[in-house]
């Protein structure tokens, strides 16, 4: 009981701190910590310490999870939900990007924290056997963004596949003349937690070509052009979850009639 009471007090204290931070964007580089909670499949917790503030954040809700052997770039916003199932205030929305900076792997025990029971995220696609509803028109020129990890062109599972599946469903119904895929890279250097970060200019082209190849496979026969741009600027697309850095790291699928 004593242990539970102590945990409760700790939770209350850290929750209050987190509430003060709600709304403020955070961004830092750190080595991730895995908390070995067990509430079933995929229920482990990912924690990340902001070295500048000393705050430990729960970053588990990132669609792309950390690798305990490498540093992560954390970008997020303190969650409006005060619950701390992983023992730290959560960032949500949040993104973690694996960086090529080695870390000493570190796992801590659950220490009484339950972790989160896995539930399918909102952005998940149904099997092919499930028919997609035909989206309503008007079928006029439209742009569909797709988002990436820092400096990567890899489609993020249960994020990009959902965005693309929705786009493809619309494109199949709208039957545009062609698609123009534009890849963007956030090439302007920034220093985060003492680490100078800038995406490679060539990742813009890689993103365009990855998405173009995927579209050729999903909508065969439709012409697909590629373009790429550096020095990406943030957008206000809601599927970037209000994270400006995420919105920069994108490709756009433009349906042209």
């Amino acid at each position, binding site marked *: 009981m004593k242990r539970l009471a102590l945990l409760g007090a700790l939770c209350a204290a850290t929750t209050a701190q987190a509430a003060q931070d709600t709304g403020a964007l955070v961004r830092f580089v750190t080595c991730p910590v*895995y908390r*070995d909670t*067990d509430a*079933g*499949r*995929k*229920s*482990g917790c*990912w924690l990340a310490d902001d070295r500048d503030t000393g705050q430990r954040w729960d970053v588990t809700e990132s*669609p*792309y*999870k*950390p*690798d*305990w*052997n490498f540093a992560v770039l954390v970008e997020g916003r303190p969650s409006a939900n005060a619950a701390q199932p992983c023992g730290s205030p959560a960032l949500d929305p949040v993104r973690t990007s694996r960086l*090529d900076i080695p870390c000493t792997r570190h*796992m801590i025990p659950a220490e009484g924290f339950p972790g989160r029971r896995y539930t399918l995220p909102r952005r998940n*696609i149904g*099997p*092919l*056997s499930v028919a997609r509803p035909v989206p309503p028109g008007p079928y006029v020129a439209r742009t569909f963004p797709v988002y990436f990890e820092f400096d990567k*062109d*890899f*489609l*993020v*599972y249960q994020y990009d*596949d959902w965005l*693309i*599946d929705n786009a*493809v469903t619309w494109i199949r119904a709208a039957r545009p003349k062609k698609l123009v895929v534009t890849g963007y890279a956030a090439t302007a250097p920034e220093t985060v937690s003492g680490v100078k970060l800038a995406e490679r200019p060539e990742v813009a082209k890689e993103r365009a070509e*990855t998405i173009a*190849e*995927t*579209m050729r*496979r*999903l909508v*065969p026969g439709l012409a697909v052009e590629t373009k790429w741009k550096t020095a990406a600027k943030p957008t206000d697309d809601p599927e970037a979850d209000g994270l400006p850095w995420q919105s920069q790291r994108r490709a756009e699928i433009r349906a042209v009639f």
Partner: protein
Amino acid sequence: MHLLPQKSFVVPLAALILAVSGGARGGETPDRWWAPGEGRVLPAALDYANENGTLRTLTVGGPLDTAGHPFFEPLGKDGRACVTCHQPADAMSLSAASAQRQWDRTDGKDPLFAAYDGSNCPTLPQDKRESHSLLLDRGLIRIERPWPTKSFNGKPVKPDFTIEVVRDPNGCNSGPQYGPQAGKISVYRRPRPVANMKYLLAVGFPFDPKQGYALPLDPDDGKPQSGNLMADNRAGNLRIQMEDAANTHLQMLKALTAAQRQQLQDFELRVFTAMQVTNGGGAVDSGGAKAGPARLRDSEPGALGSIGEPVWSEFKGWEKMPADEAAMLTPEQLAFRQSVARGARVFREKMFLITDTAGINSRIGFGNPVRNSCVFCHNMSQMGNDVAPGQVDLGTTTLPFADPWQDLPLFRVTCTGRPHPHYGKVIYTYDPGFGLTSGKCADVGKITLQSMRGLSARAPYFSNGLAKDLRGVVDYYERRYSIGYSEQEKQDLVNLMSAL
């Protein structure tokens, strides 16, 4: 007592009589080995005994007269047929025990032991047993892959790694004719079962989350490919697979004709195999269990167990049998059935940390580590293969996770671009697997998950035969992931796998 097969009687009675009268049900007349060109009739239902029970192979629309059929006739200069390495008694694969039996019966003259790939290397003296040790001891066939990799899915590939030979115990990766310098890399792999094919071809979702693309399209029909046919995913459809096999394993000098390809494909899609009766617990479709080959034949393929029928829930009926049915079993039979049912739950529910495994912990984004169970990858209802293309590196072929083998070649792979997400810049491997197809360093060591059906008939296991029996499979996973299985859980898993 009700241990005899029930659903099996949906096959035509005449066909069943034919199978039984043919002596295949545990008998040896005709022999359990199907030699090329025998012209036997393949019954609609064919049973073969193995150490754990009875395997049943169903041929939809059977019986099939094999005379003149390209799967059963020798097509190349070595006198081999497809059936040589895809034997009905071995769940349409080939067990090491069958290879040993054929060696002993023919003094090594069976076409199975053809120099090209039925020996450790064609340069070795072919009349000596030790020249065929990999096939005889571990059921391994030599696979010759081109180097450098030239194309994948019809697209040019420039490998982002170099490969050197550290050790070449068999001589097939060095010298003037073999090895990377000669444009050929020899790896050694188990033949995969040619059965239950609709499951291996099934596509569940439009994306390959392990590769980060939509699924590639079949060059023949334009439909998405499952990516689950071959160990290294070098063939995305049955046509490419059979042409690859005809040119290499059969040493055909001519191309397969369109008619032969059609016959082969038609046959491969009609064959279903699985255990029908277990020695320990009787028929797998009795007492509330719903397993066996007929269920495979009649079910829709490609369903994800986590959102549909849970994987191996076919045995749920054995968890708690009605008292009147249980009373008809011996205590040993009841205990075995309960063990199989527990094994199914352990398979689905025993969580452990999966670490440093490309295809799971990278690049898909699940995180490294990630907590899950066997069904994380073995997720297709009824079959236990991966609904998504199943290229995963369990470490079975790659150091430091692979067991030490003195008789396999060892390669040093050096990534020239980004390092491998878990091994780093330099990788030591017995078989680069999917990396030899995609040309990507990140894919080195990945081997496609395969069907889990008919395991009792086709030891040893894993692509390089590292597990000599089912317990060896469980023990490998325990070593690799420190799962913490209890002795009971290990036995339950073994019993489950023996009944699939």
